[in-house]
């Protein structure tokens, strides 16, 4: 079932076209990556999809409802984890619930059971500054999940992490995403990350940014342990590199 789709989305700033005629879609439970070099307009596309920015032309549909320029229908995790330093971790992750009018006490109660699943048990009463980089990302992901929107947009969520933590986070994220079945659009410029995590990859190239290719990763998500060490993985990588070089 097609959950989200964009139709001919074009956006420019100061008469400079950033993205042009973008047509993408996301199916229920899918994890799709937007892969492209810096400056190809990936973040602009996310801002349009999330409703924070209105496109010059084109539309965004969620469950066939036009949501163009309407924030609040899709959860959005920006590049930085953006945990509010003055709030304890549990208050940070339950913030979307509080903003919907749920009392702080009830919001905390609703968020609490997810702490174990997201590997955050014991951090509830801590402040974000007391967490490691990986833990902060997990908390930000939990907050995104608790937005209870059908689609999550993740803008380079693991880019600030060191290589080892990043690898651990990939394994953990694949596990969690398989359990919670959250339909996700992920921005990355890391080819290996895109292949490892995604069901499909849209490759964005050029200025203004356009969708150049769509690649399906055939390997099932729950069978990807050590996938990055296989020849199949290297084939995908080579294919994407060829597209980007063009």
């Amino acid at each position, binding site marked *: 079932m097609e959950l989200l789709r964009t139709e001919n989305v074009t956006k420019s700033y100061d008469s400079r076209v950033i993205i042009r005629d973008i047509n993408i879609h996301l199916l229920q439970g899918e994890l799709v990556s937007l892969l492209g070099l810096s400056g190809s307009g990936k973040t602009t596309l996310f801002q349009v999809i999330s409703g924070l920015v209105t496109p010059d032309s084109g539309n965004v549909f969620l469950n066939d409802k036009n949501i163009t320029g309407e*924030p609040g229908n899709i959860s959005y995790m920006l590049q*930085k984890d*953006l945990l*509010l330093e*003055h709030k304890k971790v549990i208050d940070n992750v339950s913030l979307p619930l509080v903003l919907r009018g749920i009392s702080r006490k009830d919001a905390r109660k609703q968020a609490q059971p997810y702490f174990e699943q997201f590997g955050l048990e014991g951090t509830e009463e801590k*402040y974000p500054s007391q967490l490691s980089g990986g833990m902060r990302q997990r908390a930000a992901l939990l907050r995104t999940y608790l937005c209870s929107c059908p689609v999550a947009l993740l803008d380079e969520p693991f880019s600030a992490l060191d290589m080892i933590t990043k690898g651990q986070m990939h394994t953990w994220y694949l596990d969690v995403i398989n359990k919670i079945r959250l339909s996700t659009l992920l921005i990355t410029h890391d080819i290996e990350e895109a292949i490892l995590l995604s069901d499909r990859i849209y490759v964005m190239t050029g200025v203004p940014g356009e969708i150049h290719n769509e690649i399906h990763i055939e390997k099932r998500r729950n069978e990807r342990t050590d996938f990055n060490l296989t020849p199949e993985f290297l084939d995908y990588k080579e294919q994407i590199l060829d597209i980007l070089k063009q």
Partner: protein
Amino acid sequence: MKRKPESIRNKLLPAAAFCLILLLWWIISATGLVPSYMLPSPISVAAAFIKDFPNLMTHALVSLQEAIYGLIIGVVLAFIIASLMDRFETLEKALLPLLVVTQTIPTIAIAPLLVLWMGFGMAPKITLVVVTTFFPIAVGMLDGYKSVDPDEINLLRSMKANRLQIFRHVKIPAALPYFFSGLRVSASYAVVGAVISEWLGGFEGLGVYMTRVRKAYAFDKMFAVIILIIIVSLFLMALVDLIKKVSMPWLSVTQSNNNGADLHEKV
């Protein structure tokens, strides 16, 4: 491991400097380098302080009352005006230059006018304190509101937060450190403002008492008043620091984390 001795050193150095100044003052007055009617010795100032203590306390309470009332009104006004200026850009453009101009008016020059307009009661004193304390807080809060990471606002907007929710969850917490920095400065200005306004008329307060002892050439008592003003100002500043610590518990956590990281790096 170096942290503890360093912290002791940081406390000892100003204490030593203070003792040195006290010693110099005593030497100057004891040797007669400056006559005692111009500069009383620290011992005679301390004696005057102890002897006059009940009287000083009565006047100090009045000045403190004026300072605190003025400070509270200044804080409320600063909060309202800074918030409105942040919300409406036109208002900010219109008011900010006026606010800056108000700070160039010497306090001592407007004090007699306030007495003329409002009489010798508490009102002109409180008004003067409001005028002197309002600016640092208002400008601080405005800077604080503007320091918010736009991405934090975008994040809340993506969660369908309204303007008031963004203000409450992001803008106010971001402005708090700036608010407390302004409040700390304003707390010391408040006492000085109250005393200055009392110089120009009134029945009670440290400024009134100061004028009386000055006219009686009782400089030891005058120095005792100055010391009391310093103590009251320091007390208010310490109170602000305490309120800041209680209302921003995450700051001490962050600071202790940073110290830990520094220590880790040193090791």
